[in-house]
């Protein structure tokens, strides 16, 4: 197991590289989810606040 993580001495370079990759993937998913939440909230506020005329699509 230790040998696997050591990767012939290259482990200290390989694991950070894969770790950063995982982090970037998670950040992108987080941003997308947060953006969706914020936009939906904004649209709901818009409809709750004002009686309006909507445009026909």
């Amino acid at each position, binding site marked *: 197991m230790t040998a696997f993580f050591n990767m012939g001495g290259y482990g200290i*370079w390989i694991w950070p590289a*894969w770790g950063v990759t995982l982090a970037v993937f998670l950040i*992108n998913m987080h*941003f997308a989810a947060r953006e969706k939440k914020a*936009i939906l909230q*904004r649209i709901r506020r818009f409809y709750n606040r004002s009686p309006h005329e*909507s*445009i*026909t699509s």
Partner: protein
Amino acid sequence: MFNWLTQYWLSPKSFYHASGRLLPWLAFVCLLALGYGSIAGLFFAPADYQQGDGFRIMYVHVPSAFAAMAVYFLMAVSALITLVWRVKVAAICMSVSARIGVWFTLLALITGSLWGKPMWGTYWVWDARLTSVLILLFLYLGFIALQSVITDIQARERASAILALIGVINLPIIHYSVIWWNTLHQGPSLSAFAQPTIAAAMLWPLLAMITGFLLFFAVILLWRMRNHILLREMRTQWVEALIK
């Protein structure tokens, strides 16, 4: 035919619904590709005869660099469509692509320097490949900065689309940099026109990772494009019906 395409398929409403149906499938295949690629790349691919296990950084480095360029290409195509035909969905695609592509470029640079240190003895050299990818990062950042300073939506999209199109010149420079100049960076392992220069047991996980990265991009792209479509079409009846 073109009207049908722009008015039906590329209308924000139908794009929203079609992409919603497509997303779970893309996410599923993406997970399979990344799962197989990671396990095969880390556990089963044999060590390289020159680089030992160090080459396993390739499985995250090559796909992120490839995605960084592919995303820029898609961004430039959307920029062209935005400028010529003013398709709303294309403008959204362009803006969202930049905000994802910048991450892949950063990732390519970071994983590359983590590979460079043990193999070349340095995190960074100012050679043609590394410098041209750094310029790609600045193109993405410049695009995002330009968009954030122009408030008028039409002017913002037109100006940033022009910047995106000018930046396309950088893509062939990145690609051919390892051939045109004498660089420290190794030559390509993969080419559409030649036999791959690496063994099959190393190649399949790499192809899976590249596929996985591109699908991941597609998932985030559609996810965020759908957010922006809702925001832009906020006042239309179909969004109102969707929200309630």
